[in-house]
């Protein structure tokens, strides 16, 4: 399978390069050894032949030609003996069976048919011919193959080892590569699915000791995909909610304008136009909230953080909202202690608290008491907005905090429609009216900006929203 693919992989390429290098260096080593072995064997043989020629020259000089002929006959019979060819001055054969014609003095390489019966190879003889003192000429030689046998043995051993090494390298390379390739394939497959729009596709890493860096990579990819999935999910939710929230008031605007066109009296027309204007304002407020959210999430406000007194902050908010809350048949009380200092942006914190107060007003029955408090607790400052309304079931708190949730199935009616407002991503949702869910998203974003922990709790009865900040020592401002 995937032959082309296999060769495209880095692992296989590395294995091939490695194998090639091993092969090349072995070939070089073999060539050098071959040359060295050959020359060593040959030079041994030359020494032996030269000594023999010198010995025979001595024999002829000292003992005479006849003795030398006898000696050659004897020596030629010994096992592993050299081969001889002795002729007199006129070229007449005297002794030896080296089937040579007369050769001039010096070293020769002569190929002869193999003396052994049935052998097909030709012998290669190394022969030294010399003229003796009495004019006779002696040739002494030996079969070079005998020297070569050693050399060949070395060569064979080297070839075996070399081939085995190269083969082993290739096999290991291929096995390792295919293993890695399977992971790369899985990763590619996963990413391909993601590209095709299936954002839930995930790489399945191997567990335990067999896990390697590719599995780590896969896990990183999975984490990245989780994050992207979350973000895309939030964006989708925001788009859907924004579209929904804008469509409703915009269609109201359209209806009001149609009413204005067909109004019978000037008074009716004015009323319709004013109603349209207030709907447009709702739309603009939703846009405002979206822009505000983006601004907060960009984090630029951090550079403006100052140390501020949370007790003053909640007093100011309560002061602003109390008449409105009371007019709605609820009560608003504050519970602040002195010296509740934290680092932050008072405008944004005001907005967060305003959104929480408005939220409490919307979702509680009349007669509810809404309490804002700012307390120090060890190294932290806790600002809470709690009410005595129906609250949110405890088991839903984390849902509400984590993701879009609609506790009341009917959208746009009383009840809880707190969607991703408290969530982890840049999620948003709205339910009751434009900017409403966005308002809660803004609270979550402001909390994040301040590194504050946002929690939902049970005020028994009612909902308690807690923002926990780091406390600062505080200076008189």
């Amino acid at each position, binding site marked *: 399978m995937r032959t082309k693919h296999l060769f495209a992989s880095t692992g296989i390429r590395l294995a091939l390069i490695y194998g090639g290098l091993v092969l090349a260096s072995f070939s070089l080593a073999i060539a050098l050894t071959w040359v060295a072995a050959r020359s060593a064997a040959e030079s041994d043989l030359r020494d032996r032949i030269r000594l023999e020629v010198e010995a025979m020259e001595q024999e002829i000089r000292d003992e005479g030609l006849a003795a030398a002929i006898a000696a050659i006959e004897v020596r030629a019979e010994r096992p592993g003996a050299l081969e001889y060819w002795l002729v007199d001055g006129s070229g007449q054969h005297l002794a030896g069976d080296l089937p040579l014609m007369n050769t001039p003095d010096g070293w020769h390489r002569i190929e002869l048919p193999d003396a052994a019966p049935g052998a097909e190879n030709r012998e290669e003889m190394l022969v030294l011919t010399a003229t003796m003192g009495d004019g006779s000429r002696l040739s002494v030689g030996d079969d070079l193959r005998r020297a070569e046998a050693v050399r060949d043995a070395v060569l064979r051993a080297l070839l075996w080892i070399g081939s085995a090494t190269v083969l082993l390298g290739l096999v290991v390379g291929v096995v390792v590569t295919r293993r890695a390739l399977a992971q790369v394939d899985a990763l590619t497959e996963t990413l391909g699915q993601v590209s095709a729009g299936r954002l839930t596709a995930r790489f399945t890493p191997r567990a335990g000791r067999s896990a390697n860096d590719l599995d780590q990579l896969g896990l990183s990819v999975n984490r990245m995909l989780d994050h992207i999935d979350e973000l895309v999910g939030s964006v989708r939710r925001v788009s859907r909610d924004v579209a929904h929230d804008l469509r409703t008031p915009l269609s109201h605007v359209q209806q009001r304008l149609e009413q204005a066109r067909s109004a019978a009296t000037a008074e009716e027309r004015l009323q319709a136009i*004013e109603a349209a*204007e207030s709907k447009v304002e709702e739309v*603009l*407020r939703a846009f*405002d909230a979206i*822009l*505000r959210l983006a*601004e907060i999430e960009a984090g*630029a*406000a951090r*550079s*403006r953080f100052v140390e501020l007194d949370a007790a003053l902050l909640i007093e*100011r908010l309560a*002061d*602003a*909202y109390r*008449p*409105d809350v009371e*007019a709605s048949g609820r009560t608003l009380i504050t519970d602040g202690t002195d010296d509740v200092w934290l680092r932050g*942006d*008072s*405008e*944004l914190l*005001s*907005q967060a608290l*305003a959104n929480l107060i*408005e939220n409490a*007003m919307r979702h509680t029955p009349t007669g509810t008491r809404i309490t804002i408090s700012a307390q120090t607790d060890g190294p932290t400052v806790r600002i809470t907005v709690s009410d005595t309304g129906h609250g949110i079931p405890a088991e839903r708190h984390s849902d509400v905090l984590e993701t879009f949730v609609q506790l009341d199935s009917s959208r746009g009616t009383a009840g809880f429609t707190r969607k991703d407002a408290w969530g982890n991503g840049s999620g948003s949702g709205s339910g009751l*009216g434009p*900017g*409403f869910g966005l*308002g809660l998203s803004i609270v979550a974003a402001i909390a994040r900006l301040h590194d504050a922990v946002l929690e939902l709790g049970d005020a028994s009865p009612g909902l308690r929203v807690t923002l926990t900040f780091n406390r600062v020592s505080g200076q008189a401002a």
Partner: protein
Amino acid sequence: MHILLVEDDQETRDYVARGLREEGHVVDMAGNGLDGLHQASEVGYDLLVVDRMIPALDGISMVKSLRAAGMTAPVLFLTALGAVADRVQGLEAGGDDYLVKPFSFAELRARINALSRRPPLREEVSVLQVGDLRLDRLSRTAVRGDTPLELQQREFQLLEYLMLHAGRVVTRTMLLENIWGFHFNPASNIVDTHVSRIRAKIDRGNQAPLIHTVRGAGYVLRAH
């Protein structure tokens, strides 16, 4: 008033200019920062309305240059950037007020009036009087005719602000910014509730109400 309007979006420019002319102002227009800079340098305008994001030279740089050259006319920035940092930047550059787009013409008109007729000495006047309503800024007391008014601190501030701008429209946004320091737009009508509370205290039982609601804009405090 002679007003220079520096704005690159023609629709907004024509809309604002028409509205201001109907108010009786003389309006010159510039479509980019460089033209605005030249015109403002040559003509002594009473007020500048400047969009922040305009071609050639941005509004901030333009106003900085004019301020450096000694121009004292009030500047109102129009901006699509609602960010707090942007607002602060605009005010630091020499702007006197800002308005985030989209805005209603009533809001713009109220702010221009507040800027143009800001009486420099008025801030130091210790007693404000409108009709038979008197407010003493030192003793922090107020009376309507012979009846002392019991105002909470925030109510006093609110009334003081309305009286300082007597005869001129004050918008809800202006009150949110100046009385509470809120630079966001609450969904609730907290301003209306506060205003109706002091209205109840001031105008109660009186034949001539002082605080008037201006439809689609805000409030105005005037004697008749």
